[in-house]
């Protein structure tokens, strides 16, 4: 930590240290040096986002977020860009994981990244006009710019290779995404992704209409499976920024629901993975085992999913002793059945043949693309936000992190199965140690221009929320980076060299969550450009 500080001071303008952030102020010309230095010191790239200060000081500020896993510290590199010259050199050669974030900043803020290997659109629809950037403050949340007709730029296959389109309506996951597999015979040579069809304009809505206490409910709707992690991460970020300490009981209740959510999310994934390889008995059994978790959540919060209990300052419900007893009963039953399920999967030769040595992501590649969650742990990277950046009640709990070095789909399956059992163990610890007391505190006015980063270990990996408080009773900037956002970018490595038949399984193995990844959209995509393209490609095939 201090080492980084000392070396970075030499090449930047100013360095500030707060409790858990190291804030580095730098010039646009220095970004490559700073990035090189941070990577050399072992910092892990988390996200890149911009903040619009055009009304305040005629600048757009770029924020590069890095995390120092061993020190539990964030490094925020702040680079102001004058509104007249929104251009900076891309750091994608140094950190490949930044590619999507840079494309996103280009779309939403209109920042030009020089030397970017793939400067196509990522987030905005094809019919969105070129010079309109929706996350700038001068763009009103409810305005609808005129449509522009542009062909969607897609990767052209090389001579002799064909394209197999999967999607936009994907067969095994009920969300739209368009995968283009460029194949050479049976083998996948390259991969192109066009997604963000479910981009809903959530960040824009929060930054322009809602207030602090309304956003948790919007945040929870980012994802249909792991929504609680989003509302939790948002509330934590605001609480950190405003310096609010929530009651201990509220922290335990948050941890409890985070673990219950991991339980049902992983069981859902096990079912889906079995479904993809055609083992439907297992699919139905995994989902049956999952069901009691949903019932117990419904009994406690009133909802099976999207509990709606998080607010800034704590939680709105209390958990009674009878509920704790019920949870204990449910998890004991699930533990027994998951052990059976695990035996069935581990002994099954057909599953082994389909899962082993498929979609391999080596340790170095996993590091390079900054993947997170079970995908990273399946490649042998020891990273878990619950221990690296402890939040909620996790500092008081004992957590074991399962690791597997082989990096294939099989490794990710084993890691997830193990995590279900670890989650059950954590829930037991929570049930034993949950303290008495209030569940929320009243919050007073939140000071503007304070910022905070909050991490949560979502079922799919490291979730990142950033909040900068604003003067109007709502965040000036709220940025979300879902775990699948990083994991997607590593898909091209996993898919290269695999056979077409394995593609759905490999895509499924990162447990992709499109809604999480594609948080915010304003206009729905009604052009038929996708259909035209698919038809053309089908002809080629």
């Amino acid at each position, binding site marked *: 930590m201090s080492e980084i500080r000392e070396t970075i001071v030499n090449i930047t303008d100013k360095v500030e240290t707060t409790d858990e952030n190291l804030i580095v102020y730098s010039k646009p010309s220095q970004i490559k040096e700073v990035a090189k230095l941070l990577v050399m010191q072992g910092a892990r790239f988390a996200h890149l986002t911009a903040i619009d200060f055009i009304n305040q000081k005629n600048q757009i500020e770029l924020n590069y977020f890095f995390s120092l896993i061993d020190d539990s510290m964030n490094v925020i590199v702040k680079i102001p860009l004058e509104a007249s010259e929104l251009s900076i050199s891309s750091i994608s050669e140094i950190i490949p994981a930044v590619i999507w974030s840079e494309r996103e900043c280009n779309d939403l803020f209109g920042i030009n990244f020089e030397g970017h290997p793939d400067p196509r659109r990522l987030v905005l629809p094809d019919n969105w006009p070129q010079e309109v950037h929706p996350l700038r403050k001068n763009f009103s949340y409810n305005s609808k710019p005129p449509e522009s007709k542009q062909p969607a730029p897609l990767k052209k296959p090389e001579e002799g290779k064909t394209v197999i389109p999967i999607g936009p309506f994907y067969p095994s996951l009920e969300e739209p995404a368009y995968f283009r597999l460029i194949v050479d015979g049976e083998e996948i040579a390259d991969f192109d992704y066009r997604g963000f069809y479910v981009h809903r304009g959530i960040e824009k809505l929060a930054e322009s209409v809602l207030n602090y206490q309304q956003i948790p409910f919007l945040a929870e709707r980012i994802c249909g499976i792991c929504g609680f992690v989003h509302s939790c991460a948002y509330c934590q970020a605001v609480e950190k920024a405003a310096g609010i300490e929530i009651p201990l009981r509220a922290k335990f209740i948050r941890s409890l629901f985070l673990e219950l959510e991991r339980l049902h999310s992983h069981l859902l994934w096990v079912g889906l993975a079995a479904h993809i390889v055609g083992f439907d008995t297992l699919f139905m*059994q995994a989902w049956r085992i999952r069901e009691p978790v949903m019932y117990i959540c*419904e009994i406690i919060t009133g909802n099976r999913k999207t509990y709606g209990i998080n607010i800034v300052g704590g939680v709105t419900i209390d958990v009674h002793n009878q509920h704790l007893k019920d949870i204990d009963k449910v998890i004991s039953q699930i533990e027994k059945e998951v052990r059976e399920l695990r*035996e*069935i999967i581990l002994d099954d030769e057909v599953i082994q043949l389909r899962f082993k040595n498929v979609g391999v992501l080596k340790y170095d590649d996993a590091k390079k693309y900054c993947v997170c969650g079970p995908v990273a742990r399946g490649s042998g990277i020891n990273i878990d936000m619950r221990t690296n950046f402890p939040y909620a009640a996790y500092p008081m709990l004992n957590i074991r992190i399962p690791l597997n070095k082989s990096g294939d789909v099989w490794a990710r399956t084993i890691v997830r199965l193990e995590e279900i059992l670890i989650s059950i163990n954590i829930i037991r610890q929570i049930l034993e140690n949950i303290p008495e007391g209030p569940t929320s505190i009243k919050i007073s006015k939140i000071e503007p221009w304070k910022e905070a980063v909050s991490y949560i270990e979502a079922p799919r990996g490291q979730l990142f929320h950033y909040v900068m408080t604003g003067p109007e009773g709502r965040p000036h900037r709220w940025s979300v980076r879902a775990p699948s956002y990083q994991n997607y970018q590593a898909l091209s490595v996993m898919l290269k060299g695999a056979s077409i038949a394995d593609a759905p399984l490999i895509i499924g193995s990162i447990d992709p969550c499109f809604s999480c990844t594609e948080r915010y959209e304003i206009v729905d995509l009604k052009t038929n450009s996708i259909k035209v393209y698919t038809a053309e490609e089908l002809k080629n095939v």
Partner: protein
Amino acid sequence: MFKSKIKALLLSSRHKKITRPYPFVPVTPPENLRGRLEVDPNKCIGCGNCVRTCPSRLITIENYKDERIVMFSSGRCIYCGRCAAACPEKAICITHEYELATDNKKDLEITIKIKMVKCIVCGKPFTSLNMLNKQIERLQDKSEEQINKLKICAECKRKGNV
């Protein structure tokens, strides 16, 4: 290989049918379920706390002639229950009713009208009758003079002071 298949067979044969026969057999909702909203027009004082807390921004308050109209367009409701928690008079109540499918949007709309009180100086309606009664109730000194003070709108009070 066969061992694992036999285990799978045993696991699935242990449970016959777990799908609930809903809607043929009704399901009792859990105690904390947040369902349809119910608003008591007699209790509402038209303070607007619910308007500020509603995440889906579906509650509107408008003054029309001598009435204050509070409208809940519950078609957009996410059933978070924040309005009920914010209501100082407990006028909003969350019921257990969850079968709300309808082909008529109006079924989900709740409109309540609250009587307004006219300012005794300028004659403009300025507060709701329920709110005024509440304020009078809270007065320690219930003299005619104090009560009349409450019946003057903020604007006239300011003018009077000047």
